[in-house]
């Protein structure tokens, strides 16, 4: 029993790191534009299917699909951004409806193109088991975890030290003042959408190598990313990582101790508990803004 729980904790941390990438993309676009992109999970899904496409057609490792995933997801992100940008009134509310609809269209496009079968990597290299004492992981999970940590580090550095990254934070913090600093907010919003799309591309390919994907996963991922964002609040990368790991572990424990049918429900229960007990989020003591 203890081994089972340890194994669940370990798997939860590994998948949580990929959830963190998804949530960070959502938070980035929200920070700069004040809109919640409800099609974000579908962008991740799109990247996962690019990995499937490349693997099934060429026999290469799924990570060879990253350039293709980046190109496709960037193109869709830009189209999405241009559509959202056409909204003139009540952008917060109308963008929810618009992005939700785009998500449905993307899910159905994927359904048409790839059918509703579950897909996962067939790479023997990635599916090889690696043991760490009493717990096991697939090599693909370890690679995905390491990749996620590296990307989070890069994102942290970019937001902290690069001109564009700092400008993204400035626009998130105070749009009017950012304009007075010579920052073109529309350009910065485009950049933040593209970076969110890049994170989604890596997350999608990673997800394909460690989990099963099917068209409905996109919507579930958006919900997960939203839960994590509420758990952690936007603005702190370590906070998002911890929130994502908490969600991953909760799901994995539910699957181990109860049933995999309850996996999505567990996330929702966690979400409701946090909303009731800690309405400012897990790390919300310093809830500011507004």
């Amino acid at each position, binding site marked *: 029993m203890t081994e089972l729980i340890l194994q669940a904790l370990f798997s939860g941390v590994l998948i949580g790191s990929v959830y963190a990438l998804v949530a960070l993309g959502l938070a980035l676009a929200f920070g700069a534009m004040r809109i919640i992109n409800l099609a974000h999970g579908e962008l991740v899904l799109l990247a996962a299917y690019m990995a499937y496409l490349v693997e099934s057609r060429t026999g290469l490792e799924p990570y060879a699909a990253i350039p293709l995933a980046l190109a496709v997801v960037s193109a869709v992100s830009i189209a999405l951004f241009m559509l959202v940008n056409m909204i003139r009134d009540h952008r917060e509310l109308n963008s929810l409806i618009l992005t939700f609809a785009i998500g449905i269209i993307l899910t159905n496009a994927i359904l048409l193109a790839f059918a509703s079968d579950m897909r996962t990597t067939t790479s023997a290299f990635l599916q090889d088991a690696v043991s760490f004492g009493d717990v096991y992981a697939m090599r693909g999970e370890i690679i995905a975890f390491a990749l996620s940590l590296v990307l989070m580090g890069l994102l942290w550095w970019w937001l902290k030290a690069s001109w564009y990254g700092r400008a993204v*934070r400035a626009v998130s913090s105070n749009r009017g003042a950012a304009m*007075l*600093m010579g920052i073109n907010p529309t350009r910065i919003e485009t950049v933040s959408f593209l970076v969110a799309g890049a994170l989604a591309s890596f997350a999608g390919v990673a997800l394909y190598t460690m989990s099963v994907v099917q068209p409905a996963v996109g919507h579930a991922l958006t919900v997960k990313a939203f839960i994590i964002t509420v758990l952690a609040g936007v603005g702190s990368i370590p906070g998002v990582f911890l929130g994502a790991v908490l969600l991953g572990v909760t799901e994995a424990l539910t699957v181990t101790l109860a049933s995999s049918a309850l996996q999505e429900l567990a996330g929702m229960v966690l979400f409701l508990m946090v909303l009731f007990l800690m309405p400012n989020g897990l790390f919300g003591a310093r809830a500011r803004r507004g």
Partner: protein
Amino acid sequence: MLETRNLSAGYGAITVLWDVNLKFRSGALTAIVGPNGAGKTTLLRALTGLIPHTGAILLDGAPLKGKTWDLAAQGVVMVPEGRLVFRDMTVEENLCLGAYPERCRGDLSANLERMYSFFPRLKERRSQLAGSLSGGEAQMVAMGRGLMAQPRILLIDEPSLGLAPVIVNEVFDIIRRLKAEGTTIVLIEQNTRIALSVADDVHLIRTGKVVMSEPAASVDLDRLHDLYFAREGQGA
């Protein structure tokens, strides 16, 4: 030199500023004074492209065009009131963002050191979040951030707003030093007494019109206050 010709501006159908003709001499400090609602902030917003205008704004004889961020890149830099710092970024990050326009990015560390020599208190607080600063310190961050943009003309909005008198004096000491260094400054200020003490030229705006323009040295404070409060119906 910055110049406005028949500048009118407002919000939608409401015109707030009417045919304003002003000259801001290079290297001088020009104070714009006037009561609440006179149109001072509207003037500033028009000069920085935050609201549309009719008429012309000329910088060294060439018309200024573009959005707010283009104007900032051309050196028309506004220091908004201290509340408008980036609250969830550190003091140093706030200062660095001032140097965002590409022509200002070279030699960032030397530029920062210059700011810290101006505002030694900010050096102590460099890694503190700007949202945690006192009102006076936040005002210094806003000014330092504006100076990092190497302005050709610096527009300062109500630097005394909400500050304790002793802090106001400190802020104006800094404005005097900037002026002594030859920075071209436009100062928007409600506090006429302190504005007169630093200004070279003074313009009084009331109900959207310039009602007085004079060198600060020849301004009589009593007469200015008569105009300011529209006593005796002068200038109406």
